[in-house]
């Protein structure tokens, strides 16, 4: 496959390399991505609850997403693609890193999960005219150079009546203390240099980008780590980690 150099790509090369180096360890719950494994239930719970309500799906369905086409942009090792596939969705997993896609594909094949993994970018997919019922944009915007351009490309792939989920980190003193100093330096939950605080995005900036891209912001929820339960939980405080839900109005 010959890949045209993305002219106005929002991806920073050094960021792609950083994650490629870690790709093989994606699926070890006790490995370098253990924080993401711990974080997975809270974001999947949010997606299941909100998408079921939005698309009028029975809350107890065993395969709630069986009629939905889903894009996971920046899918890494496939930590979200596999659960979404088990829940019945037709999933495209996209990541700029060939090595991540290779890791994700090998893992899904071993488990017998059919997932359409592509080493590509949001810009390329949007240019190809791809459309989805749900676009997952989780823990990616804090790694891109031009947030509004990136959000614009992702939003362009949301069908009328469809949803885009965004998860990211707020740019506050608290997030500097917890996400950089705490998570990377004190607790060692994330490799040092995983995040660059200056690239964190405030809820105001993100909701503006979503609205500029034609989406209505339906919800903003904070997420925090509860050390007693050793689990991530939803909270009203969006000061560090938060989730935002955008919806493209249905056509009439």
């Amino acid at each position: 496959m010959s890949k045209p150099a993305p002219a106005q790509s929002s991806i920073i090369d050094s960021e792609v390399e950083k994650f490629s180096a870690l790709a093989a360890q994606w699926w070890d719950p006790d490995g370098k991505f253990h924080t993401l494994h711990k974080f997975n239930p809270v974001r999947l719970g949010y997606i299941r609850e909100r998408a079921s309500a939005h698309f009028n799906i029975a809350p107890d369905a065993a395969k709630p997403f069986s009629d939905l086409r889903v894009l996971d942009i920046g899918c890494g090792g496939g930590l979200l693609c596999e659960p979404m596939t088990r829940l019945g969705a037709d999933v495209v997993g996209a990541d700029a890193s060939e090595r991540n896609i290779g890791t994700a594909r090998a893992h899904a094949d071993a488990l017998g999960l059919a997932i359409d993994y592509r080493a590509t970018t949001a810009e390329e997919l949007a240019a190809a005219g791809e459309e989805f019922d749900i676009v997952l944009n989780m823990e990616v915007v804090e790694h891109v150079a031009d947030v509004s351009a990136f959000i614009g490309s992702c939003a362009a792939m949301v069908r009328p009546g469809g949803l885009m989920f965004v998860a990211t980190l707020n740019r506050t003193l608290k997030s500097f203390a917890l996400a950089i100093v705490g998570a990377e330096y004190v607790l060692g939950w994330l490799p040092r240099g995983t995040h660059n605080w200056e690239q964190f995005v405030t809820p105001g900036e993100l909701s503006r980008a979503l609205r500029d891209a034609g989406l209505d912001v339906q919800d903003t929820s904070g997420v925090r780590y509860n050390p007693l339960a050793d689990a991530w939980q939803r909270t009203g405080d969006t000061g560090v980690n938060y989730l935002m839900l955008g919806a493209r109005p249905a056509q009439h």
Partner: protein
Amino acid sequence: MAETIQTDIAIVGGGLVGMAMALTMARAHAQSGLSVCLLDAGDPAARANIEADGRASAITATAVNMLKALQVWPRLADHAQPMREIKVTDSQTSARGRPVFLHFDEAVSRAASAHMIENRFIYDALWQAIGETGTVTLHTGHSIETADWGEAAARLVLDDGRNVSAALVIGADGRASPLRASAGIETVGWSYGQHGIVTSVAHEKPHNGIAEEHFLPAGPFAILPLPGNRSSLVWTEREEFARDLVGGDDATFQAELERRFGERLGRIAIDGPRMSYPLGMQLSKAFIAPRLALIGDAAHVVHPIAGLGFNLGLRDVAVLADTVANEARLGLDIGSTAGLSRYQAARRFDTLTTALTSDGLNRLFSNDNAALRMVRDFGLALVDRAGPLKGFFMDQAAGRNTPLPAIMRGDGV
């Protein structure tokens, strides 16, 4: 190429806890969509027989909630004897009148703390219910030759050459658990050098729902009320003496029993097979491994002094079912330690507390040292006079002291 059976969950071992696990997963099937297999080297249905298992279990209030949620309680209610009082005495075998030092009753516990049910009826109720669900695939009469803990799935090879490929294997394969060994999980524990003799007796006078626990020099001797004028016995003796008694003649057994039984219930007659079980404490160092979760005796064997073994197993079932259902609801890999670690974290503390409490009680009471006897008599009398403390013990026996998964609060599966 040998046949491969694909399943989401393979439960190995069709004892009480394994059956309860299979039934719980079957009840949750409509929502979870998870397929369930139950494997057993023998015939689980044959266990519903007093000759195969002559024991009875104390079913706590929370366990009753769970059995109701599983829709098996209607089959058990007629066989269940509420324990209205527990009398604890501490004496030498020869003492005629035994002073009662602890006296628990419903006024203290707010509701009957537990029901006694013979195991044969529990096997039968669970087995019938499993058959009726139609969602549990049974592979019985074949043992497992090897287990392979793969990255993507566990593979169990049966003695007829067939393979079972499962996302999660649940080990309910007993205290010797070959699955636990195969996953390289070690255990800690010790033997008490004691055996528990189990049998049933018919007696002349009604027991009025009163359970008696006599702490005799050789260890606890419990008379647990069954429906009608019958009781189940758990009689602790040193290993060699227990073997001699169980293997010996009826007259000797009856005579030794009468020496210990007391006269409250009038004349007695043995009414069931005599069996004996080695007593020991054993805790698995881990309850999980990639693609494996251990439940029941495979995870923990506690001293039967407080009657908590089966209840601990049911709590394992409730918490593991809850954990697996949550993982499945989010589309997560049910065999990954990322999710299973929540089961382990929830169960390890409760299990350790129960194991150590039972062990401590047994050590305290299995000793005929006069000074120790004075100390514990004094302690028991104090506990008896302290209402709140008795409430705590009664709640502990009823399983009300730890946070409960939904199914044990009576909120359904």
